């Protein structure tokens, strides 16, 4: 680790810290229906959309109706995306003449993009037509993120309001998130990306004759527009197989900053929006502080582990000064790769600028563990906020047990019903991740997909289900996931990770909304101070992380000691 590396890392956090308040205020205005420049420009479109769709924007929905609307929208998105992928050979903008995407891969990909996971069992430049990339994948980069933001707003209103039965209108929240938040910001970022060197063209490729006389076919496409929303919506699905390690997705140190900034700033700002909408800005900052402490710890551990290098290669005579460079780009180095890896998994982004599967044992443990914590640092845009609120409820409940008082959060009494649903949500991740991993390691054809034997092989499978259930999308890429088994089971893991998590959360929201918001008294445990932040961090680590420890001990931790001992597999 070097001072320069830490300066590089600090600059990113400085940018994000500056952006949190203005972005947070802007989003609060959008979701509370205040008028601004964007709503003036987009208002006629928005109202026209509602009229065509038969939506009454003034009619609010209860938690069940809101959830059903979200499910209907996700189902429609899945069906249409599946159809586009299967029919791409007959659709326009297919200059490479790609055939239909096979059924199991199309299922996996459609689920992946609709659930905001963006796990990719395919190499974008070799499988997807421009039409599939634009009208299929780019669209769901917007809509899955807007869906997450809408759900977060519903949960926020449940805590902001007193004795109500409605949480807002899903169609209005989702449409506003798309038209007024994601679209204008993505547009600006996309143009910035073009200026930095990301291609944006409908041509398929350029053919170069190299200096040594060989032919090099260079894949091109509408990369910048997809990269912008890929990050902004914490999606992470790359245009190219190598994702943001590819120089066309991420050509310079500055584009690397813009990539990370785009994914981190909206999610962090949404927490500020929450604080503002519930009328307690300190609460927003308290949650942001807990997230930042854990995230920066994650960056530090990865950076330290990767900068130390791989002793197996050092013993062969490789200079350790550059650290572990396998799977990393020279222009990013260790600090900016570690930063990307921790942020992309603390969020539910899943894009990568270096190959996590080639990280050292502990360096690779961190991204996996950050996803297993539930992606709340600060998590996917929207999904991170409601995930964090579940942990906040659990924290006040544990605090309430310690002192023997009925727990309260923001004036709402937390009782048995909320706790049952909160535990149901929290248990989904370990059930899906550990369950599918355990089954896979017992099936010879599933084990045959691993790329590196030994403990790393277990890590590859564990990471795959972690990434799918957490709706992250990054991978230990040694695993050949494009098989019937992994396409299907990872698809199911993504569905459960998204919907089996959010339905109980929405049930909590419905139950909280109906309760009276009581003013704080002398006996109320303050949830916006350092004591609560510490408790929250502890609850996240214990309830979110501890159950994964045995599996992690057999995978990345054993691998770390094998690496130190010079053992290969």
């Amino acid at each position, binding site marked *: 680790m070097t001072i320069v590396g830490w300066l590089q890392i600090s600059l990113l956090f400085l940018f994000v810290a500056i952006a949190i308040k203005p972005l947070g205020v802007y989003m609060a205005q959008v979701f509370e229906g205040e008028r601004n420049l964007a709503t003036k420009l987009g208002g006629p479109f928005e109202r026209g959309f509602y009229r065509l769709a038969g939506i009454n924007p003034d009619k609010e929905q209860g938690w069940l109706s809101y959830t059903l609307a979200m499910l*209907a*929208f996700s189902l429609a998105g899945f069906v249409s995306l599946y159809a586009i992928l299967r029919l791409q050979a007959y659709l326009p903008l297919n200059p490479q003449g790609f055939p239909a995407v096979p059924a199991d891969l199309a299922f996996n990909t459609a689920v992946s993009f609709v659930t905001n996971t963006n796990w990719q069992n395919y190499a974008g430049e070799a499988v997807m037509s421009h039409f599939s990339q634009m009208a299929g994948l780019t669209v769901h980069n917007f809509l899955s993120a807007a869906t997450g933001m809408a759900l977060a707003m519903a949960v926020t209103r449940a805590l902001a309001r007193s004795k109500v039965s409605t949480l807002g209108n899903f169609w209005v929240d989702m449409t506003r998130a798309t*038209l007024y938040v994601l679209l204008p910001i993505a547009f600006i970022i996309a143009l910035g990306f*073009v200026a930095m060197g990301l291609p944006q063209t409908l041509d398929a490729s350029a053919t170069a004759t190299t200096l040594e006389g060989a032919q090099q076919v260079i894949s091109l496409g509408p990369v910048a527009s997809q990269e912008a929303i890929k990050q902004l919506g914490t999606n992470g699905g790359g245009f190219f197989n190598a994702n943001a*390690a590819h120089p066309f997705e991420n050509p310079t140190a500055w584009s690397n900053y813009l990539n990370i900034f785009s994914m981190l700033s909206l999610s962090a700002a949404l927490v500020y929006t929450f604080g503002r909408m519930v009328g307690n800005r300190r609460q927003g900052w308290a949650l942001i502080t807990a997230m930042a402490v854990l995230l920066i710890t994650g960056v530090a551990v990865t950076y330290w582990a990767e900068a130390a290098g791989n002793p197996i290669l050092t013993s062969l005579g490789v200079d350790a000064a550059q650290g572990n460079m396998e799977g990393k780009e020279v222009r990013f180095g260790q600090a900016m790769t570690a930063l990307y890896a921790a942020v992309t998994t603390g969020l539910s982004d899943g894009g990568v600028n270096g190959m996590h599967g*080639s990280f050292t044992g502990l360096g690779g443990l961190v991204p996996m563990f950050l996803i297993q914590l539930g992606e709340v640092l600060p998590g996917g845009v929207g999904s991170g906020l409601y995930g964090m609120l579940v942990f906040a409820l659990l924290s006040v409940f544990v605090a309430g047990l310690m002192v023997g008082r009925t727990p309260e959060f923001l004036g709402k009494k937390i009782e048995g019903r909320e706790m049952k649903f909160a535990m149901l949500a929290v248990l989904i991740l370990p059930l899906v991740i550990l369950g599918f991993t355990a089954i896979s390691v017992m099936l010879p054809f599933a084990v045959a997909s691993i790329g*590196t034997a030994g403990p790393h092989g277990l890590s590859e499978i564990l990471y795959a289900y972690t990434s799918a259930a957490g709706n992250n999308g990054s991978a230990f890429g040694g695993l050949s996931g494009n098989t019937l088994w992994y396409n299907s089971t990872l698809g199911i893991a993504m569905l459960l990770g998204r919907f089996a998590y959010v339905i109980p959360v929405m049930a909590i929201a419905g139950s909280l909304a109906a309760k009276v918001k009581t003013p704080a008294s002398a006996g109320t445990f303050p949830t916006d101070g350092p004591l609560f932040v510490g408790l929250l961090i502890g609850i996240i680590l214990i309830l979110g992380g501890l159950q994964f420890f045995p599996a992690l001990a057999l995978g990345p931790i054993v691998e770390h000691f094998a690496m130190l001992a010079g*053992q290969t597999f």
Partner: protein
Amino acid sequence: MINHLRPAITILFLLTLVTGLAYPLAVTRIGRALLPQQAQGSLIERNGQIVGSRLIGQNFTSDRYFWPRPSATSPDPYSASASGGSNLGPTSAKLKERVDSDMKRLSVAGIAAPVPADAVTTSGSGLDPHISPDYAAAQVARVAKARGVNEADLKALLSRLTEGRDLGFVGEPRVNVLELNLALDEMKS
């Protein structure tokens, strides 16, 4: 659920038009108008022929050129339509064997241990356009001999083309291999 289907399908269709067609096509149009070079992939032409992209690495094996990092793309190294890394774990026996054999190849070319890490590791994209200044410096003697040029002239060229950190700390020191080799061809030998 049924009464939600009409809004679901209608809104999906309308937002597909906005985000899936209008948005990328508008960015494409504006990008081509304002930044044609970048929008087309930062291609480099020499004598009217495309020789590569400034951002994409290409393979060099001749002693007359500086070599890039190893690349894990298939079927050939630096296949710019099939990006990807080796994805080998740190304890992989294959990784150890590959690095070992690359070390031997470099040692024949006059590069002795300790070897800069980027010289024997594959990048995440397999298309890394850069090498570290250390790895470039280690190749100067070989290239100078093959071309019959002065080592001091080569070193001067190298230091001119080495990119440093912006503002003193942003980015890593690096050399673009294709640009370096193009400049090499321009040099009088």
